[in-house]
């Protein structure tokens, strides 16, 4: 049970961020107030599709990239 209250540190969009352990990618998006329909999640260099976001737990040391479309030529 103690691991549930531990903090983990991940690299989120290139910057270190601390969260409580046991966090899923889906919860992470909710926490950041982001819409899974317009954001693509890359977890340790692997794209995680929306149906799998709830089942994927973020671990200490993970790298998460959240990208979306912006204006471009």
């Amino acid at each position: 049970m103690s691991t549930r209250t531990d903090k983990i540190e991940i690299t989120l969009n290139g910057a270190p961020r601390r969260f409580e352990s046991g966090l899923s990618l889906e919860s992470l998006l909710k926490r950041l107030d982001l819409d899974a329909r317009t954001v693509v999640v890359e977890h340790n260099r692997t794209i995680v599709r929306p149906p799998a976001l709830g089942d994927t737990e973020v671990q200490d040391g993970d790298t998460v990239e959240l990208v979306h479309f912006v204006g471009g030529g």
Partner: protein
Amino acid sequence: MATTVRETTAETLTIGGHTFASRLLVGTGKYTNNETMVRAIEASGANVVTVAVRRVDLDRSKDESILHHLSPERLFLLANTAGCYTGDEATRYARLAREAGFNEFVKLEVIGDKETLMPDVIGLLDAARTLVAEGFQVMAYTNDDIVTALRLEDLGCAAVMPLASPIGSGLGLLNPHHIRTIKHRLSVPVIVDAGVGTASDACVTMEQGVDGVLMNTAIAEARDPVAMARAMNLAVRSGRLAHLAGRMPRREIAVPSSPESGVLDT
């Protein structure tokens, strides 16, 4: 004659099995605000609009995706890999874009030099090979070199997109001969991408016989982007029609337009 004109203006552009009414493709970058961008796209009549893939800005609480302003039902969103300097980076961006987007198309850019933004053709060919194998419809941004263009076609790219001049330069079509050569030799659509500065550039480019033109800065950085978008719409159609109409030959001597007979005695 009216029938001929109607037929030619009704022709369409087909890339990788998708058919578009307009031969003008536009970017969505550099606009001062989204409202101007939306109105400019509308005025341009473009069906294909390019977008870039970037990190969500986590510090700004309501950093909106551009999808809130572009309707994927009305516009065909073409993701680019702009800002990528290696083939691996470009393939990573392309895969992310496919997840975020609505189609298998990618505008593949692999940049080789920060100052000129000229393409790295070796990285480009590598990435094109990988992405075609993964089922992407690759529209490859390249220089105006026929050999690279032929290689890209051989690899199975859906379209080859040679530059008119460097990205964002507005210098216009610097080598019409190279562009004509590429168009003559390739079977896949040739879309000239980058370098157009104003309407006459777009018109001259289309007069070379290419299948389309893609531009961003020329519209976004015009004093009145909506008016320039309209001008580009007319220029692309005008240039296309002129190409189909077939221009008169160039002559080194003057030939009078009026009859030389029947002139009054002096």
